[in-house]
């Protein structure tokens, strides 16, 4: 594989993690457009830790994830008092608040003969942990996919555990879930917090493979991509999100690059088509069941 393919593997990995951050929240029936905000928090916090404090990428990434998770938890309480469209509006507002915070955030220090750190609207440059520490494109891709695999495995395991069933119960019918003693607020805020943590991890990785971040990277388009992956792939299991991230990034973005603006139209058309004809996504429980029957891979999951 050449450098370009490894680079693409990195992008797909980060976008898979981004999609999974929205997947957890979507399981509870909530649509969060705040994911780009959480990604921004993870990106800036982790970037500052590796560049200004000279930490290693792993603790920086985890700290970035935790910072995003804490904020997601705090925001989760008031935001989850509203539902449906109002939640969408509230989370968009939060995402914009975070973006504009970084737009106005200026904290730079002298490091040798250069001044580094976030510089408001000018962005945060020289987040070069990977190249400066001898990580090749393959190393970075492998690292991203180890992180993605851990998150995929954790969510896959969670899906099959009681926690997953609780999340899905809330997502399917809140009243019924509440009537059997499930605390809706705890479940929803927990999903929001987990989604924030995963988005923060995605942000930390994003900042380090692009080496430069600015507020415009974390706009409504990124939030749309985050929820588009699980919507396209379906919520039956985590593999749908993975499939959608590969499909969008490899086919729509990369293979169809020469189509120019048509790519943007195709992305929108794809979402509309799937929502109309496959409202439960490309990998709905029915599709997964049929696939298992055809391939003879055993019984269906209870998803």
């Amino acid at each position, binding site marked *: 594989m050449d450098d370009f393919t490894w680079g693409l593997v990195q992008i797909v990995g980060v976008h898979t993690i981004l999609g999974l951050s929205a997947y957890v929240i979507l399981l509870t029936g909530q649509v969060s457009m705040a994911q780009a905000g959480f990604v921004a928090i993870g990106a800036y916090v982790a970037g500052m830790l590796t560049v200004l404090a000279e930490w290693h990428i792993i603790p920086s990434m985890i700290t970035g994830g935790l910072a995003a998770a804490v904020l997601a938890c705090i925001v989760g309480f008031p935001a989850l008092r509203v539902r449906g469209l109002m939640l969408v509006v509230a989370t968009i507002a939060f995402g914009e608040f975070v973006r504009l915070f970084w737009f106005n955030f200026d904290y730079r220090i002298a490091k040798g003969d250069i001044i580094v750190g976030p510089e408001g609207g000018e*962005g945060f440059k*020289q987040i070069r942990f990977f190249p400066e520490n001898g990580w090749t494109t393959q190393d970075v891709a492998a690292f991203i996919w180890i992180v993605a695999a851990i998150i995929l495995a954790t969510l896959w395991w969670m899906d099959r555990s009681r926690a997953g069933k609780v999340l899905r119960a809330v997502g399917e019918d809140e009243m019924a879930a509440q009537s059997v003693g499930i605390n809706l607020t705890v479940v929803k805020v927990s999903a929001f917090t987990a989604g924030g943590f995963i988005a923060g991890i995605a942000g930390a990785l994003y900042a380090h493979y*692009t080496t430069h971040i600015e507020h415009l990277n974390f706009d409504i388009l990124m939030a749309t991509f985050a929820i588009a992956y699980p919507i396209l792939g379906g919520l039956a299991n985590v593999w749908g999100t993975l499939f959608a991230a590969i499909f969008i990034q490899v086919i729509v973005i990369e293979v169809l690059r020469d189509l120019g603006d048509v790519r943007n139209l195709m992305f929108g058309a794809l979402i509309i088509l799937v929502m109309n004809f496959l409202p439960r996504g490309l990998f709905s429980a029915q599709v997964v069941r049929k696939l298992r029957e055809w391939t003879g891979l055993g019984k269906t999951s209870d998803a």
Partner: protein
Amino acid sequence: MKRQIMLVAAGALAFTGTQSAAVSADREVHVAGFGAKSGVVRSFGVNTEAVMRAAAEKINKEGGIKLGDGTKGKVVVTFYDDRCKAEEGISVVRRIASGKAVVAIGPTCSNVAEPLFGVLQKKAGDASDTGLQFPIFTDTAIKGGLAKISEWAFRNVPNESQMYQSLFKWVKKTNPGFKSVFGGVEEDFAHSRFTWYQVMEKRAAEAGFEVKGRVKWLLNDTNFTTQVRQMKKAKADVISISSHPFTLCGVLKEMKRQRVKYKMLIGLTSSSSMETLRGCSRQAAGIIIPTSYAPVTPAAKEAAAGAAKYNGSADLHSAAAWENMFILKSVIEKTGVMAKADTVQADRRKIRDGLAALKSTGGLIGGIQRTKEGEAVKPYVYVHAQGKEWKILHDPRK
């Protein structure tokens, strides 16, 4: 019989001549271009691609590029759309670097250039730095001081700081009665923001103007009522707007509607393009912009005609791609690039070293000086909008 022999001999000579002047069929010098060809700033990429293809056509017609072993190679241009997105720009350059291209021209957006240059190796030859080792020669992304990020990054963009310093001094000298400046800035676009805060505002104050304030808007804004009202209230002599054609036209139309009075209007370098004249030539009438391109020399006119042939237009940004192509031709010939499948990485290094060694180059409206940071110091003129044309108002060199 004698006549027939003469004819055959003439034919053979003509054939030999054609062969020597023609491009070697099996040697190709791959030059990649990349920039925004979709989205609101798509005209940048469309124009750069048109200019690159026109320049390549001219180079190939003139016999191609002389390679290290004396043969001639044909220039092959490929162009990729990065949608003005950092992540896609990096991916596009990785794709280019994984292929046969020996150098790339681009990107068109500063917000792509900045992360992209960060992905490149910082110091050429530093084995401890695993950054990408691929030469980039930027034509459009103009935000100040970016080439110093990597020794593999070079730019042929004008020095805005110098241009606006000269412009404001000239305005003060020719209009001593003008006392104040009021600004308008497209706040969320890296280039326009940088140019207002780091260039226009500072250079205007240095020239002795009182900067009465500034109003802000965003790239996707379509309503400028409040900002223009503030602008009107300031009653400044000079209004200096740092924004791209899309919002510049919106602001100018609103200024006309609110009957804002001013004595002089100054615009951002990037707005000295056909997009501004297509969008609002009437409202932009008289706006003064410093630019490093105007069709004032035969070469500049040829670049404009070439771009038009490929459905683009030569302007401040895209015309630099023409210069880049000819600078690269000269560097490739001087450094002995081989353009063979097994010399791609060595060729890239030769081009990088060749570009780094340049002290001066030719340009469409005059000679260009090169700095050790990989930047250019280009000649410039002041143009103003008149009808559907940009006309030269003043040439500071004269």
